[in-house]
């Protein structure tokens, strides 16, 4: 009689794994990356490579310091790539490298690595760079010129000089801005791919973009301009859907999207920055633990929806 393996049920597992999801995200980012390189030239490629390498290297070193095994699961690559995509095309490479290193070291590894971070590492990297080198982070190059002619982003133009950019340019990406944020169409292709594969939930991007559109419309702004301009698409499809830092319930994801949408509009209209996608997601990341705690699905056979369940009896 052979020695058999005994393990608890279930005895079959789905073939979806962390690696598979991560590499699908990378594939979904290819159109965006290609657009970035096409519009802003070869320097962009260096920025992307620098970010990815720096992210991988930092993760390796940090895990070694922590005495853990380095696993090539693709998450560091995504962090590096996403960070690169939300940086200005002309950013000095050393800044990009520091940003990626900061993102991985403090936003990810300090919390215990993949799965434990509170904030989206790529966005922390971007926020860190914005706070550290505001000038470099707001120096935009003109698309398709391949030399550093500085211009303003569509949102900047709109905020400072009240000039609206044509929709077609916003959709195709023929405007200045961060590497990966300009072409709404390319992002949409990747996003739809991920939604179709069911790796991301459609609720987040839809509620996020929807909120921005509705709120912009309600406040007398051009909703289409507001959803196409800036990094809203990139944020909505790739950052606000990051598993680790967003709510785990479907309703929670809708709340997340709505909250982020409101913050984006508030920052764009009265804030100190022309764009607020990065900060809006970071702020909602901070709210995520609270959302997770209080927004729970209704349990089968349990009538009442109970909010504030566990804190009810702790006061006394």
């Amino acid at each position, binding site marked *: 009689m052979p020695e058999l393996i005994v393990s608890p049920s279930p005895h079959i597992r789905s073939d979806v794994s962390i690696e598979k999801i991560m590499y699908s995200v990378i594939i979904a980012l290819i159109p965006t990356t290609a657009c970035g390189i096409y519009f802003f030239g070869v320097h962009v490629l260096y920025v992307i490579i620098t970010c990815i390498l720096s992210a991988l290297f930092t993760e390796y070193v940090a895990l070694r310091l922590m005495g853990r095994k380095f696993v090539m699961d693709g998450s560091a690559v995504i962090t590096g790539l996403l960070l690169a995509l939300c940086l200005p095309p002309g950013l000095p490479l050393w800044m990009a490298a520091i940003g990626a290193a900061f993102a991985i070291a403090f936003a990810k590894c*300090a919390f215990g690595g993949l799965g434990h971070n*509170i904030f989206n590492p790529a966005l922390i990297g971007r926020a860190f760079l914005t706070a550290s080198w505001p000038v470099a982070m707001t120096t935009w190059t003109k698309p398709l010129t391949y030399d550093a002619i500085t211009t303003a982003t569509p949102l900047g133009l709109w905020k400072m000089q009240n000039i609206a950019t044509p929709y077609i340019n916003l959709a195709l990406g023929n405007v200045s801005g961060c590497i990966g944020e300009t072409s709404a169409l390319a992002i949409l292709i990747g996003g739809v791919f991920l939604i179709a594969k069911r790796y991301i939930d459609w609720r987040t991007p839809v509620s996020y973009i929807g909120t921005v559109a509705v709120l912009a419309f309600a406040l007398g702004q051009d909703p289409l301009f507001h959803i196409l301009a800036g990094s809203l698409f990139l944020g909505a499809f790739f950052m606000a859907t990051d598993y680790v830092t967003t709510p785990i319930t479907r309703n929670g994801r809708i709340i997340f999207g709505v909250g982020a949408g409101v913050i984006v509009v508030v920052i764009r209209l*009265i804030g100190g*920055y022309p764009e*607020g996608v990065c900060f809006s997601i970071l702020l909602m990341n*901070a709210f995520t633990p609270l959302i997770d705690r209080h927004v729970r699905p209704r349990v089968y056979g349990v009538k009442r929806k109970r909010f504030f369940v566990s804190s009810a009896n*702790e006061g006394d």
Partner: protein
Amino acid sequence: MENLLVIAVGAIFVNNIVLSRFLGLCPFFGVSKKTSSALGMGSAVIFVMTCASAITWPIYTYLLLPFNLEFMRTVTFIVVIATFVQLIEMVIRKYKPGLYKALGIYLPLITTNCAIMGVALLNAEEGYSLIGSVVNGFSAGIGFTLALLLMSGIRERLEFADVPKSFQDLPIAFVSAALLALAFMAFSGMRL
């Protein structure tokens, strides 16, 4: 009215008392381990801060300013606040022992909570009216509670996290606070 809204938004978001002014850090790190106690502490601070703003304002305006005793504001304020907090402490201890237990040693520390003293001083410095002071005090309390709640949520989740040994407990709390402060920079430069 416009003015009050500006004060409120300023105190809650733009110049958040914890994340931007560095006031009240001891309870921010001390009581943020559980959401429930964070909520309790937060409400205590909101209450004390509002009342302290309301009490210190007349004393400053009608007692210290007319007699040119501005230099004594530190002493006066702290005495007023200390007395007031001690009263609150006694009340909670008597009627809400559970809450008292949860807040532990931090309730007496509200006395020395620089946030409350700081708000009183800021009110004096900015020259707010009575209503302005109260709104400022209340909003600062809300800002404090908001930051505390977010922090407690984060730390509750971190209990499951596989934080490296050298970052466990306080260091990771500081890192979280740093990242939270980074996120709160969203509101810097906000104008109404």
